[in-house]
Structures are given as structure tokens and as C-alpha cells.
């Protein structure tokens, strides 16, 4: 259980990190919290020749609202999300998800950038960010670009990122009044990957649904956004019937596989139940 041989580089600045990535290209991997990358290397599923440790790079660990958006630095640890006052008071979907990721040891190290760049469909935060309509900021020595998360995610462990790029920020539209949201996760035990996870975000305006976001974990090749369900909800009254229909659509959008955590059929059923429950909870919060 030791990784194969690699070279270790510790970047002190973002520029240094980006230039190392530009130099080594495909043969390099960013090392953030290491909670996914190191296990993969130990199992020898991954054997990068060069690791670029970005943990010392300053300026990537902020959580702040600026210009109508919540901006979360790529190096923000799960623990920081879990304990942020700003997140707790204004972003209930994130607040609900963060403490359900792994266990305290992993949360102390794992980062949001790593979670999203890793693109494991069992990761919790990408679903949350899909539900919130987030975009990601990608930087390279040559410049930077911003992509909606739903476009960024391509396939399991595959994203739009180029070998010379680093994910530096996640940008979420700022919370609106009369909003609510939550994250429901069926896990066999604390610290387990989700059997199914459902992120919901709901904004009400004048007794109707202004915006609904639904992200799904562990039921597809990537974290999924249940767009049909979201569209069906937009503009509708937040009734149990509307939620049931959205849940049905979300379950239909899920493409789980059968594995030791449950059959595809069961997981789809849980999506249905959790979307209903999640929306009902979000409605309560939005009305409060």
C-alpha cells in the first residue's frame, strides 16, 4: 500500500503552482487535501510522476460574499465550510452537507476544490453546488476562465480542466430572501460514501417557486442536476403535489447502478423519497 515513485513539488504561490503544472502537464497532479488522491495512489489506481502541493498557496481559502456572489476558495476545507458562520446563516444546503462528508479527520484536510475537481459522482459537494447553480473558476499561467459546474463535470473522474489549469474558486449566486435548502444523504454509516444523496435549494417569491435547484449524488456517471424537476418547479406553487411530481422527475433523471450499497431500483426510489422530503424541508425554511 505504498504509491509508486513520484516527485514532490511544493508551490508557495499560485504562479509557481501554475508554472509547475505547465511544465509537467499530464504527468502532474495537484495535491490538495490528498484525501482522494493519496488513497488512489496507494491503491496504484493513480501514479502521477509529479505532485504539485498547493496547500501553502495563499489566498485560496476564503469564504466570502462579494458582488452578489458567494466565493469559496478551492482550498477551503470541509471543516471550514461546516463551521463558517456565513454558510450556516445563509447557505443551508451547504451547511447541511458539510458535516455529512466523511468523518472529522477527512473533513480537516479535504477541500472543496479537490472534491469538485476529483469529479467522483459520490462526492457530496458537487451536488450541492449544482443545486445552487455554481460556476467554477479555472486558472492557468495563460489566464482564467469560468464554467458552469454542470458543464465542467464530464464523466466519472473527468472534467473540462486542462492539465495546466487549476481550479481556484467556486462561485455561487448570493442567497436570496425566502430561501431554504438541505442535503439528505443515505449512507450505510457515518463516513461512508452516499448510497444516494440529494441536495435541494428553494427560493420562494409571492407564494410561488422562484427558483428550485436539485443535485443528485451517487446516481450517475457524474453528480447530476435534475433539470426537468427544477423546471417543473419553477413558477409553480410549492405544494406537496408539485414536490411529488418533481421527485418523480428527479428519480427518472437518476441513472444509478446496482452495487453493494443497493440496487439501481432502490436508489431511484430513495431519490424520489428524499427529493420530496428535501423540498418540504426547504419550503419550511423558506417560509420561516
Amino acid at each position, binding site marked *: 500500500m*505504498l504509491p509508486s515513485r513520484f516527485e514532490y513539488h511544493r508551490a508557495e504561490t499560485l504562479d509557481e503552482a501554475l508554472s509547475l503544472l505547465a511544465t509537467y502537464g499530464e504527468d502532474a497532479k495537484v495535491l490538495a487535501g490528498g484525501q482522494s488522491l493519496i488513497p488512489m495512489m496507494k491503491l496504484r489506481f493513480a501514479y502521477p510522476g509529479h505532485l504539485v502541493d498547493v496547500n501553502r498557496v495563499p489566498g485560496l481559502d476564503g469564504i466570502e460574499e462579494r458582488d452578489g456572489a458567494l466565493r469559496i476558495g478551492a482550498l477551503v476545507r470541509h471543516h471550514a465550510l461546516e463551521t463558517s458562520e456565513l454558510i450556516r446563516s445563509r447557505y443551508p444546503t451547504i451547511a447541511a452537507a458539510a458535516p455529512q462528508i466523511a468523518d472529522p479527520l477527512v473533513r480537516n484536510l479535504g477541500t472543496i476544490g479537490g472534491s469538485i475537481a476529483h469529479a467522483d459522482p459520490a462526492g457530496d459537494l458537487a451536488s450541492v453546488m449544482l443545486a445552487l447553480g455554481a460556476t467554477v473558476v479555472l486558472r492557468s499561467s495563460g489566464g482564467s476562465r469560468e464554467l458552469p459546474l454542470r458543464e465542467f463535470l464530464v464523466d466519472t473522474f473527468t472534467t473540462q480542466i486542462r492539465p495546466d489549469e487549476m481550479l481556484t474558486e467556486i462561485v455561487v449566486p448570493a442567497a436570496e430572501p425566502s430561501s431554504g435548502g438541505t442535503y439528505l444523504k443515505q449512507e450505510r454509516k457515518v463516513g461512508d*460514501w452516499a448510497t444516494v444523496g440529494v441536495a435541494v435549494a428553494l427560493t420562494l417569491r409571492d407564494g410561488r417557486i422562484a427558483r428550485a435547484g436539485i443535485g443528485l449524488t451517487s446516481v450517475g456517471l457524474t453528480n447530476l442536476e435534475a433539470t426537468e424537476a427544477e423546471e417543473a418547479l419553477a413558477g409553480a406553487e410549492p405544494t406537496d403535489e408539485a414536490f411529488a411530481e418533481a421527485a418523480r422527475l428527479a428519480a427518472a433523471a437518476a441513472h444509478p447502478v446496482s452495487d*453493494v450499497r443497493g440496487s439501481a431500483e432502490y436508489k431511484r426510489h430513495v431519490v424520489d423519497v428524499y427529493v420530496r422530503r428535501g423540498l418540504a424541508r426547504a419550503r419550511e425554511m423558506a417560509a420561516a
Partner: protein
Amino acid sequence: MATDAAPTTEGRRRNARLQCGAMTTSIFGSAVLRTEDPRFLTGAARYVDDIPAPGALRAVFVRSMMAHARLSRLDASGAARMPGVVGVYGAGDLPLRPRPPAGNVEGPFERPVLARDRVRYVGEPIALVLAETLAQAEDAAEVVEVELDPLEPVISPEGALAEGAPVLHPEAGTNLAHAFEEAWDEDVLDGAEVVARVRVRHQRLAPAPMEPNAILAVPGDGGLTVWVSTQVPFDVRDELAEWLDLPKELVRVIAPDVGGGFGSKLHVYPEYLACAAAALRLGRPVKWVETRSESMLGLNHGRAQVHDVELGATRDGRLVGLRVDILADLGAYPIAAYLPPTTRTMLPGCYVVPRVASRGRSVVTSTTPVAEYRGAGRPEATLSIERAMDVLADELGMDPVELRRRNLIPPDAFPYRTPVGSIYDTGAYERALDEALRLVGYEELRREQAERRARGERRALGVGVCCYVEVTGFSRREFGAVEVEPDGRVVVRVGTSSHGQGHETAFAQIAAWVLGVPVERVRVLHSDTAAVPRGEGTFGSRSLQVGGTAVHEAASAVLAKARAVAAHLLEAAVEDVDLLPEGRVGVRGAPERSLTWEELAAAARDPARLPGSLEPGLAAEARPSQREYTYPFGTHVSVVEVDLETGEVTILRHVSVDDCGRILNPMLVRGQVHGGTAQGLAQALYEEMLYDEWGTPLTGNLAAYAIPAATELPAYESAHTETPTDLNPLGVKGIGESATIGSTPAVHNAVVDALSHLGVRHLDLPLTPERVLRAVREAGPA
């Protein structure tokens, strides 16, 4: 009756009392703090991997990726040229005899140390790579070329017996490794007005101790010193000596701190032999420490039995007869085929069952070998009878508790010989049941359950009861020795092999009590064949009753000798000399005429100061044998909530009343009950070792195999009754496995009970949300 008390302060007070030498209090019931714990809590414990091993080569095994295949080629030439590599060995390079199957298996089901021409499970060792560093050994293991031509695997025990099934051991000509029948042709259900029928699957489990398997073999002086993570150091010594053709005296085996075993470290693993042989051949220390993923497939699995159970009764709920058909999956090599016969001896549980018929068939499959796992044969018996009792209660329309009451063996029936020939020593089964029901508030829970059902609540409440009796004290003879050193300190040597249980505390307590010295002055040596002359090890909840008894007997002999010495020196009659409350030995009622242990030890070394008939020294050895096994028992009650929409189960409460005879140290007992309950609940709700249709493990690491943690488990409400046994002077039975045996059926019954109003009668373990939901849906609306 004792319920859990807060351990620490109370324990400390008791420690203090013992330290003051206030020996008038009983040995029993003292929650002496574990003397082991400071080293565990401060990280000073030493496991095999912590033993300094300068110059040790690191061993990595190349293992089979296929369940069943012909090994057509093994080419290590590339690996041998890798940096740091010192040796790569296949079966042909290490001429080690194959290992025989378990004693009761007939036929040639031998197990090679390294696979020869065939592999029979994923994970089977094929080659051993030795290099200067672990990284080098791992790199080299990756390039060992192994060619496997797949053969059809044998995945299930049913499949092993199917017509035309591939035969795993062609020399044996069959997959059936062991069979027995008892009264199988008799109609034991004759006279039954109602028969409950249920197929109980005891799923395959991975023991998964915290410390995986490990060995460090150091050659020298023509022999070997071996540190190994085992429960049976003497077995390891004997077998290493035999397989390596060394005299036993030249093999020293030490089990240092061992991070759990649960039965999985009762065997001499092929890796031990390969590493020891390589160390001898190369004249260099060899160290092997399993990875977790290796461990999940390398350490023997447990359970893996299927029972077809028929339990007959009259309409008024009197049991008439029991018939159980056991099909046991032994994995690739039948190394523990005695387990189904052990199950047989406990089939009727704690009930008066006039007639019992059973049959057992044990087969080989292309999976990891199955052997002892906490409870080893008894959990299977208990789960089957306890499930059948609930199914029967349902058929009879009777409360499951009432059905149990009508059939429990009454307290005046002991010793009680069951129809399968077990002799239960002592028991008060209904008392434990009553106490558990009282603690849980049974009637109140039934009321709440009815109310929830009436309201049609989404969260259904279930209550499950399990009355169990089990058997402990296997290998009934054990070695113990006690010696008072010149400074008055006491050394205890014992043949059991603590690997987490806390024997260093328990046995020190016994010697301290007998000799009237503080616990801190007693040192317990174990698990080192150079420090202890002989021993059996720790398994089957035997250690206190056989090892503790040996220590007790040896300590008593030392005290007797001390009295004789004191009487001689004080010119008193032996009858007037005794252990005095201050921890001195002297004349009763005349404390000024007494000697300290230091004085006694000094005198005992000087032949001139001894009465003529006595040998010098204050030491004694004992190796008593317990006449029969002991039978701990108890009742567990689980309260669960089931989400009828998702099938998710939450254990709300778990109450246990375990009776292990007299309780020496309540804190050690509590530890065993808590850990045992955790493992039992884990079997009920979480754990299962799964294979796909190719025989590839699906749960071969801890990301896939679900072991619950504190977050999933309820606060245990554990209490005890104490019904002493008369089979040993301490009156103690085993407690190491009881809670594992009692808890699984309680949860199982509780979950089925939560759904019983829907018509659900039985479910397979583990009770995953999906399984539970499917049952709800198939049952339809209430």
C-alpha cells in the same frame, strides 16, 4: 443484579482500596482499572509492526486475482532484477509441505503454503517477494508474472453440491468435506400441531480486527525468534518447528500486543510458514504486515451457514421437536469443519425441546476459508432457534415472550442434559428474561407500538427479544504459575494469550487477592514461549475460567507454602497461620507475629530456614482441567424504528442482561459486552462479505464492507445476573462472545417485529434498507 455504573471514579476507589491491602473485600465485583491501558492510551503499546527489526527484509505476497484457476506459469525473473529485491519465491522454491485439513475432515483437502498448480480463492498467496524496503517489495510484486487459466468458480454452498459442480480439490473428488446426521430419519415433529419453518442465512463476515495479520521472523542460533499477531503462540511455535524441522526449543514465539483477533488469529497462516522459511534460508529477519485490503481476504471469514429450521409445537405453545438442516460454507480449505458440529450442540437453545434432529453438510467453495469468528458456531444456533421462536409465536398468535416463558428450561432442572447431549451446568433463564423486560419496559413499548400502528405512522416500532445460552471453556486444561520474588513482587505466568481482553489486570487481581498484595505488585507474563512453559491460548471465552483457575490454584499453593514457612519460622501451628488483613502472613489474632512477603520470599530461598519437607522458593505451578464446559446465558432486547418509506432502520435501544457466572471485574465484563454487542449489531444490520458470479469479492476493503462505528450504535444498557457455575473454584463462565451471540437475533427479531403487522415473517441478514423496504412493499399495506 448489577447495572452499569460509571466506571472510572468507582473503579479508582476500588483500585485504591485494593492498594491499601484491604483484602477483606471479595475478589469479585472490583472494577480495577486495566493495568494495560496506560500503554495503549499513550501509544506505548507494541504491535508486531512496532518491534525494532534492524536489517529486516520486507515481505509482500503476490496473490490470486481469480477465484478458481490453473496456475500455468509463474515467472519471477523480472521481479528478481528489481532494485532491492533479495528473493522471489513460488511454491517450487520453498519446499514446504502442504497443510492438512481440520481434524474431522476426511480426505485430501490439503492446503499448499504457496499455490502450486491451482488457486482456489481470490487472495490466495502465490509468491513471496522479499526486498530491502517495503516500497521495493511492492514495486517488484507488481511485475511478478502470473498466468492463470480460469476455471469455473464455486460461489455458493448450494452450488458446491449441485450436479456437475466443478470440483475444487480433484484429489478429494467431491466438494463435500464433512457431514453428520443425528436422528435425521426420525419424525421429531410428530405430535406438533403447528410447525414454524424458516430458512436462516448466517451471512459470511470478515472479522476485521483493528490490527491486521503480521509476523516478524528473526533467525539466529540455529533457530528462530518470531513475533506474530496471534491468539495461540504455542500453536504457532509447534507448527513452525514441525514444518521447518526445528526442535521446539529453538523456536521462540512471542505475541506482543495484539490488536484484536475475534478468532481470526487462531490459525497458523501460510504466510507465517513462508516468511519463517525465507528468514531461515536467507539468514535475515523477515517482516510481513498485511494491508487492510489483504486482510479482508486473507484472514479467515466467519459464519457462512444456511439453516433450514422446522420447529414444532402444540397449540398452547409447548415445543415438540426441532429439525435443522445445516449447510456450511467452509471456503476453499476446510480448516474449521468442526464448527457446524459445534452449532449442533447448541441447537435447542435455552428451551425444553423434547426431540431434535439435525444434519450438517460442510462444503468447500472458491472463497476465503471460513473459520472461527466471535461466537464460532454458537451464534448460528442461537439465531436459528430465536428466529424460529418468533415465527412460531406469530403462527400461534402468541406474544414471543410468552412463548419463550412456556418453554425455558426451569432453574431447578440444572445440570440439564439436552437432547443433543450438552450438559448445561447452571442457569436461571427466566430471571435474566424478566430483568431485561423490566429494564426495557416491555409492556410500555408494546403499547406504543400499537398506538403507532393505529395512527399509521411512517416510523414503525419493533421490539425483539433473544434468550440465549452458549458454551464456553473449550480446551479445558490450562497452565498457570505464581512466584513471589525476593522483593515481594509477584509474577504470574499463564498460558492464555490476551489480545485486548485485559488478562494482565484480571489475573493480577486473582493473585493479588489470594496473596493479599496490591494489584500493582503483580506482573502477568503471557504469550511468550520463553517466559511461559506451555499454554493453549485465548479463544472460546475460556481464559478466566481455565487460565484464571490455574492462576488461582497456583496462587493458593503459594499461599499454602507461605503459611507453612511462616508457621515454621514463627513456631506456630500451620492451622493458626493465615493471610492477615494487612497483607502479611502470620498468626491469626496476633499481628505482631507475622511476616511480610519479602521476608517470606527471603526465608523460602534459604533451605536452612525451611521446614524439612519443603523445596526452596515461593512458587507453584498448576494445570487444572475443568470437568465440563460452562454455559453462560442471558437475554437481549432491542428496540428499533423502521422508516417504512425507505427501509432505514435505527436501533433506539439495546438492553442486555448477560449472566457469565460470578463477575470478577465488572469493567472488563462491560468491555466484552459492549464490543460483543457492537459486533452482533453489525451482523444484524451492516456486515456481509459478498462475491460476484466470478468469485471476485465485492466487499474486499472497508470502503465497501460496512462496519458500523459509535455513530451508528446505540448507548448500551447492559446489566447482569450472576449464577455461579460449580465447575471451577471461581464460579465464573465466559463473557467474550455472549453479547455477540445474544444481540444479533434481538435486532433481527425487532426489525421483523416492526413489520409483523404487515405480514412480514422473516428477512435475511444484514437488514439493509433495501431488504427491509422490499419486504414492506411485498407485504403490501397493513
